[in-house]
């Protein structure tokens, strides 16, 4: 299997599907001539031309709406949000139109739309450019929401997203665009609604998604070394549909869980995770599910503050120890 970066995997999936399917096109700010702010689409305008790689004015609501119109007539637009932080401006179109028009048209239309872009923080972009949107979009029926973290998943899930006849909110781990991993060749999609067991373990389940999965993997190593604890790491990966079974199965085995999220505590994915676990694995739980979340502040700029605003190894490791009634370190 070839190694490639998250960025390359993403581009490969889009470019390959564009080759296969003429109805796939790209839209967004500076994705063409400029090459893409994060260079995800670099070179594609030369390959596919400006009718299929459309540079738009700064108008997130308007061009997302236009993409929905295109999708309703059978095209498959992939819209880049330069960052998901700008998507509040498109949230009305995504939620009020894309997610619902199939329903309120009595099933007369489909909206095969992908909206993609970097999500989450970690590069000092401060308050207005740092958000984790999974719970916001994940709340709404009619949308599918995914959050891949490995290069292999980002390729496979992008293929699935493009082929899905429904609107897909595709949340990329922006801070990881440059990270490498093995990516299978071919046009195989990774299905939505299946969590990934990123590491097997027996004593406690660390449940997360996005770049926090990597954090959890580091914590798992540390717990193994420092405490002889075997942690299982679950990469939720698909936010809506959410794979409750894999989560519940893991906890039935480990009896303990820590849910980790970069986003804020209230109404987040970790709350949902805890809520599902207590509902479906109540009798298996040996300790409350502990949530580790971002600090309850808008994202700060200064490096040290930003680091402190997001979950860190020590917090997660200590949360795991608490579920095991071990001493914190």
């Amino acid at each position, binding site marked *: 299997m070839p190694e490639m970066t998250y960025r390359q995997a993403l581009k490969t999936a889009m470019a390959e599907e564009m080759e296969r399917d003429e109805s796939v*096109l790209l839209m967004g700010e500076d994705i063409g001539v400029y090459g893409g702010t994060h260079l995800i689409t670099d070179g594609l305008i030369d390959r596919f031309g400006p*009718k299929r790689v459309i540079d*738009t*004015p700064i*108008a997130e*609501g*308007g*061009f*997302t*709406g*236009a*993409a*929905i*119109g*295109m*999708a*309703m*007539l*059978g*095209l498959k637009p992939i819209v880049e949000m330069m960052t998901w932080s700008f998507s509040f401006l498109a949230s*009305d*179109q995504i939620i*009020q*139109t894309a997610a619902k*028009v*199939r*329903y*309120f*048209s*009595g*099933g*007369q*239309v*489909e*909206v*095969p739309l992908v909206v993609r872009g970097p999500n989450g923080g970690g590069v000092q972009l401060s308050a207005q450019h740092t958000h984790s949107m999974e719970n916001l979009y994940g709340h709404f*029926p*009619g949308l*599918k929401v995914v959050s891949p973290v490995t290069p292999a998943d980002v390729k496979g899930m992008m293929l699935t997203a493009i082929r*899905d*006849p*429904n609107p897909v909110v595709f949340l990329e781990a922006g801070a990881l665009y440059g990270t490498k991993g093995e990516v299978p060749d071919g046009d195989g999609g990774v299905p939505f*609604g299946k969590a990934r067991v990123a590491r097997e373990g027996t004593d406690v389940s660390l449940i997360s998604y996005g770049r926090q999965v990597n954090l959890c993997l580091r914590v798992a190593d540390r717990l193994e070394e420092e405490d002889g604890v075997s942690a299982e790491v679950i990469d939720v990966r698909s936010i*809506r*549909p959410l794979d409750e079974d894999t989560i519940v199965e893991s906890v039935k085995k480990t009896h303990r869980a820590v849910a980790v999220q970069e986003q804020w505590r209230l109404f987040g994915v970790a709350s949902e995770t805890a809520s599902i676990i207590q509902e479906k694995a109540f009798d298996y739980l040996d300790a409350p599910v502990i949530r580790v979340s971002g600090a309850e502040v808008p994202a700060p700029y200064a490096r040290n503050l930003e680091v402190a605003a997001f979950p860190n190894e020590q917090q997660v490791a200590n949360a795991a120890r608490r579920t095991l009634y071990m001493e914190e370190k």
Partner: protein
Amino acid sequence: MPAESEERAGDGGVETQEQRGASSVATNGDHLVELYKEMVFIRVFEEACSRGFKKGKVGGYMHVYIGQEAIATGFLDAYREGDRIITAYRDHPHVLLLGSDPKAVMAELYGKGTGMVKGKGGSMHLFDVEKGFMGGYGIVGGHIPLGVGMAYALRYEETDHIVQTYLGDGSMSIGYFHEAVNLAGLWGKDGMCPCLFILENNQYGMGTSVERTTAMTDLVRKFDAYGVENEKVDGMDLEAVLEVAHRAAERVRETGKPYAVEALTYRTVPHGAADFLEKYRTKDEINKWRKRDPIGLLEHKLLENGLLDQDAVEEIRNETKQTMSEVTRFAEESDEPPLEELYTDVYAGEDEYMGEK
């Protein structure tokens, strides 16, 4: 003065087959009589559903088109198969004029399973995709970008279809108008946006008159800011509307560039359900505009020209009313949607519903 302006429409420009076909009393009286019947039909429909609303048989929000009939009637006369139509929530006449079954429309308003969108959308969300009607939307201005994107798609697929995007005066204040029309102008430079904007200026957005929403009240000139050429028409005069409709539609079809027409009109009834007081305008103003009722004006002209007589007018009214009783009866007698319908159409494909029932 749009940057890329060619000439202002109306001052010359190619005259096409279709255009010459635009009806006037002189050239095609019979067709005008047909259109008169359609206008009466959509008027009587609106009266019928208004009664349904008063009786509590129609719920939610409902907005009728009374006073504005000449606009949709005129522009949809220029509809060709494959074109797409999109509008906001004041959408009954558009879908009816496209030939949808009035029973299915009325049943939708009544919230029945036989409704055109299975009782799921109601008055604001009519759809008949087979007939080119891409919906009825409830967020003011939210459908305008959709219309623009559809126009792009039609050229991307190398067809010569166009989109008619209807919008209200009130919708011009919202960001969507600006963002979408700007995109249309931009894409139009490459012939990639055959979108005809039809501004139904009924002079109010709910209770707010145009001069209370903007300091620049010559509304259609707002399209200048996007390089989208435009003109105005008397929206009460069907013949005038027909002329511009055919000419504008063909122009858009040929050039792939957007074009905008402002049709000045007046809604002679309340905005919608919750508008009981109408404190924002006077009885006098309403009455003044009732005298320019588009159906009345046309009727007068047809009578004057001997294309109709008083008996024929009576008969058309009576026939229409009779049809409408059947339509209403159908709606009343239809069943509510089966509860199972709650869970369908959420997603296309395999996972139609995700959740517990």
